């Protein structure tokens, strides 16, 4: 049953991504060149809506959070490496499959490269575990926990900040 839900969720997400032109290489590079904020608008809209919805579910005890641990060595070095590769490829792991779906088949080279990158990481994992992944491990923490406040005191300002950013994007024509 999980598999069917996964497929249906993926198909819907693929449709939303494709129709919003978020899958395009030029849109992704547009954001990284600070010229076209389409993907940032899409991503932040998703985050704001889902943030409110998911925390409502959590408050009503209808869902649980699934937080990844903060490991500064992994998150920072891995994140920067990801960013450099992303800038070169112009697709991220999820959107590379979507880009292939809409016929932009240079994404296929990216997917093959990604599989090789995953194989390399599997080889390097023991070494990473002993070094980078042992640096700055703070466990599964959220911003409200760190600040010691109720989560809505973080959600409302973040949502307001996103709306102000959207207004600024539209004024600047980004």
């Amino acid at each position: 049953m999980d598999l069917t839900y996964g497929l249906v969720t993926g198909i819907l997400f693929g449709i939303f991504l494709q129709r919003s032109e978020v899958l395009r290489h030029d849109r992704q590079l547009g954001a990284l060149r600070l010229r076209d904020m389409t993907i940032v608008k899409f991503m932040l809209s998703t985050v704001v809506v889902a943030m409110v919805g998911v925390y409502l579910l959590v408050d009503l005890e209808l869902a649980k959070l699934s937080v990844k641990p903060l490991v500064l060595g992994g998150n920072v070095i891995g994140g920067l490496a990801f960013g450099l590769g992303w800038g070169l490829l112009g697709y991220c792991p999820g959107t590379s499959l979507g880009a292939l779906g809409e016929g932009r088949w240079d994404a296929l080279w990216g997917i093959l490269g990604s599989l090789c990158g995953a194989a390399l990481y599997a080889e390097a994992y023991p070494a990473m575990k002993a070094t980078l992944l042992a640096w700055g491990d703070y466990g599964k923490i959220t911003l409200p926990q760190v600040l010691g406040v109720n989560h809505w005191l973080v959600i409302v300002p973040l949502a307001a900040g996103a709306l102000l950013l959207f207004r600024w994007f539209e004024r600047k024509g980004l």
Partner: protein
Amino acid sequence: MNAQDSGSPGRKPWSPYLGGALSGLLVVGSVWVTGKYFGASTTFVRSTGFVERVFAPERVAALEYFVKEAPKVDWQWMFVAGIFVGALLASLASGTFRWQAVPPGWAERFGPSKLRRGIAAFCGGALAMFGARLADGCPSGHGLSGSLQLSVSGFVALACFFAGGLVMARILYRGR
């Protein structure tokens, strides 16, 4: 061959705010019904495990990382496959499907060579995936799912994704 994406025929795109908000509702529905948050990069590990198992089954069995992320088809694997199917259906239905080897923006900067684009995309994919696994997530797992749960790791990773991407874009498109 490389028709410009802008001004190409086909139905007009949606507002990214609309597509994003609908995706947000989709996340909420997914978390509510199945408890699953979006992610994509673990699927590449599992798929690599499948391929590698054909050539070197002992190696796959011996690697700790393939024990942690076993080669199997799970919710996320089907989700990633679904993104492909959804994009295919939507692009065909809207007349925006293009069989294209070199993105227009890339061609403008680096020329129409399919080989050059292929090599760059391959290397970019390898580096991005190595980084995503080291960071324990990609723009789906950290960027969307992490930040929407207000997890500190999600915000840190997302900031680093963009920092790395801005640097690479600056290197590639300097002065343009």
